[in-house]
């Protein structure tokens, strides 16, 4: 691939022999590939394959131990984001780099204020952003405070930041992990428009369907090295999956019919209000039966998250009852720990911030919420042997890499962090398992694995409630589907009756069949 190309147009971005180690971890091994100008280039790989590390090197956040970066054929030194920006590179990080209490406008101009005083720069940015909004369909309320915006819009702010800095190459690290399907569609339309304008995009994702749908080329990484580089049209979903994982993967959930039993969790007339007193969940009533998976579908922000958190005991409802094992969790005011003891486990949506303590070692995270269970405790002291063994066992069973219980959780890649949280909650052998976005950010091999575990749990007679914005996932896993809109459960569908269209309509607020 190093033969001098007669092609007069050099690639927009070219990597040559990028190498990076973190201590013992060899995160990037002599990586070389090129991004053709005016194309969308996909980058896939298992969790921990080194994708984010590579992107951070391109953006000057990490410094490669060896290798060269070329932009438009010219070698560039990128040791800081400033140099990356100057080279025309923009990046949307997996975890947004926004100042949460700033307005959109302030976030966009930060670093390119255009003068010592803000007023002029802000006015200029307002005009410029208006133009970008028209050109790319990137509408954002410019004076809204970022923390008040849904993630989809926050991401848009990130993209606007890059475009406002005249980025020619845009890197997106797992941009759709946090988006609803609708938001993801909008994003891809926008990326397509960027491509039309001659800009290049690097798209890191775990969703192969996205790769197939939007990219022109794909690079596949495994264990820090590039294992394949192909034109998208020359490959297939299945082929990519195999290249990535190194074996054949199931892309469909495989499961037998559900055999629902007695209700395990009963929710009656549950109402939840937020800090401002607005009802976010209005009179939810439903049962979770033993041996079934219930999917809770809905456009993000319609109360599913609040409902899940209330069931788990993180939020207090303003009205209603939640019965588990004949006990009213609301009236007794049981906290999440007490609920866990009754067999109610919970995998929170925001695993990074809620489900774990990033600076603690993996083994300490593997007991979070179960830290006072007799399994991990002697009379007074924690049983360290049991904790270590438990963690090792979970890491082995869920293929968490590297399988080192002593390592700080923050040193694991995003997907591996998630797996550990899932392992913890599923392994506790709960009667009822609540899961928010079960496979957000995990690789395709892991998705297969997680789905298997969930189905096995169901088949063992447990009740599962799954909140997901991926209709695919809901349709693949759920035996019964509840749809939420505006805080209400506006409908229920058996798996057999459910189609993407019907759920979509209900999610949009159309109650009965037939629709408007």
């Amino acid at each position, binding site marked *: 691939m190093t033969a001098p190309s007669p092609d007069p147009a050099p690639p927009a971005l070219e990597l040559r022999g990028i190498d990076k180690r973190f*201590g013992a971890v060899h995160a990037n091994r002599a990586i070389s590939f090129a991004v053709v100008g005016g194309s969308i280039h996909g980058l896939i790989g298992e969790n921990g394959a080194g994708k984010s590390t590579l992107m951070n090197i391109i953006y000057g956040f990490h*410094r490669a131990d060896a290798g060269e970066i070329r932009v438009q054929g010219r070698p560039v030194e990128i040791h800081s984001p400033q140099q990356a920006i100057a080279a025309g590179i923009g990046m949307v990080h997996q975890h947004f780099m926004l100042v949460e209490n700033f307005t959109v406008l302030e976030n966009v101009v930060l670093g390119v204020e255009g003068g010592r005083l803000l007023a002029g720069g802000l006015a200029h940015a307002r005009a410029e952003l208006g133009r970008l909004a028209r050109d790319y369909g990137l509408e954002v309320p410019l004076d809204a405070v970022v923390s008040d915006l849904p993630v989809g819009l926050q991401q848009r702010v990130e993209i606007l930041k890059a475009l406002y800095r005249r980025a020619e190459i845009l890197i997106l690290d797992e941009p759709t992990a946090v988006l609803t399907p609708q938001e993801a569609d909008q994003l891809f339309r926008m990326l397509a428009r960027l491509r039309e304008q001659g800009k290049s995009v690097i798209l890191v994702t775990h969703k192969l369907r996205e790769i197939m749908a939007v990219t022109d080329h794909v690079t596949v990484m495994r264990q820090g090295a590039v294992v394949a580089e192909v034109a998208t049209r020359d490959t297939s979903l299945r082929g990519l999956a195999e290249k990535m994982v190194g074996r054949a993967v199931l892309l469909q959930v495989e499961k037998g019919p559900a055999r629902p039993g007695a209700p395990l969790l009963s929710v009656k007339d549950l109402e939840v209000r937020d800090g401002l007193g607005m009802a976010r969940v209005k009179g939810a009533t439903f049962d979770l039966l033993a041996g079934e998976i219930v999917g809770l579908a809905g456009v993000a922000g319609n109360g599913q998250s609040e409902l899940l958190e209330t069931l*788990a*005991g*993180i939020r207090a409802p303003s009205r209603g009852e939640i019965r588990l094992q004949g006990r009213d969790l609301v009236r007794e005011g049981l*906290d*999440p*720990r*007490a*609920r*866990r003891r009754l067999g109610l486990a*919970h995998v*929170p949506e*925001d695993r990074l*911030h*809620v*489900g*774990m*303590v*990033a*600076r*603690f070692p993996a083994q*300490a995270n593997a*007991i*979070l*919420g179960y*830290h*006072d269970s007799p399994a*991990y*405790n002697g009379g*007074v*002291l*924690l049983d*360290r042997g049991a904790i270590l063994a438990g963690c090792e066992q979970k890491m082995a069973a869920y293929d968490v890499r590297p399988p080192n219980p002593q390592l700080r959780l923050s040193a694991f890649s995003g997907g591996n962090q998630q797996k550990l949280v899932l392992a913890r909650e599923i392994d506790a052998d709960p009667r009822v398992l609540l899961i928010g976005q079960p496979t957000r950010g995990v690789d395709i091999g892991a998705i297969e694995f997680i789905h298997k575990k969930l189905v096995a749990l169901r088949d063992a007679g447990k009740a599962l409630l799954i909140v997901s914005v991926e209709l695919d996932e809901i349709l693949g896993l759920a035996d019964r589907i509840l749809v939420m809109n505006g805080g209400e459960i506006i409908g229920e569908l058996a798996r057999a009756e459910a189609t993407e269209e019907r759920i979509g309509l209900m999610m949009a607020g159309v109650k009965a069949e037939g629709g408007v």
Partner: protein
Amino acid sequence: MSAPAKLPRWAELGLLPAINLVAALLLSGVVVRILGENPWSAFKLLASGAFGSQDSIGYTLYYATNFIFTGLAVAVAYHAGLFNIGAEGQAYIGGLGTGLVCLWLGAAPFWVVFPLAVLAGAVFGAAWAFIPAWLQARRGSHIVITTIMFNFIASALMTYLLVNVLIKPGQQSPESREFAPGAFMPPIHELLGRVGIAFTATPFNFAFVLALVAAALVWLFIWRTRWGYALRVAGENAAAAVYAGISPPRITIGAMLLSGALAGGLGLNELMGAQHRLLLDFPGGAGFVGIAVALMGRNHPVGIVLAAVLFGALYQGGSQLSFDMPKINRDMVVVIQGLVILLCGAMENLFRGPLAALLRRRDVP
């Protein structure tokens, strides 16, 4: 810029602190030189003043005892994500509790006074920490401000009590009467004497052992119990704590109670062990030194004990230094202390990079 270079454990825990200490002393040496004294003899005096005789070791460890208690107090709160600047006030009021027991149970034998005095010190110290803790947990009042305020309020209260209530009648000095011997903490020289080991008489007393026990218990509590685990989770990530069924407000209150109780231990050393009476300002800034001790000791009991001994050594060695070198007065000793804290506590990374490079070079065959 890269992440802090990794060092082997022995270098991290032994060599690096030693290099920092030496650097601090070298800098101090420059100042000593400017004052016209010989830095080398100054250091010899400082070192022998701190560790050179039984007398100096006794004093060093006696000072260290105070710092262990307050350092632990700061550290426990720190692990719960709370910055307790109030150890000074908590030690002051905790000492009041201890002192009252000692005054009231004057005639009782030691083994009656002792448990009650320990308890009273802990309870009073905890009580003084409770209000800021409660305000933080329930009203969101910033604990840094409230504990600063409570330091001032504690000293006002104590001045009032000592001047108007507890003062020994007819005496100039705002001090209580002396405790009865039953309320004296056994001095180490006496304890050693009983087993036939001769040791110079110093204020070094049994409270040091209690401080070590407290350090061990704190270590067990923080790293080996579910409550300590809960406390650390709440301190690191409140959202995760709520998720795990740990109530951050309860942890805030629990951790501060424990913190205040530990600070209250200072009275055992200072009042029962050394002064044998209640007097003005007996914590003498140990609550603030405790902050530096805790942070230099990385909030780990072992580190805290070591840092406390270092500070004890600076206090005692420094006092000896100013005693023997007239040109080096007490202010100069304070400068040396400041430099040591700066280099060992805040600039601990100064030599990390070069040291790591050096060690790496040597590893390459």
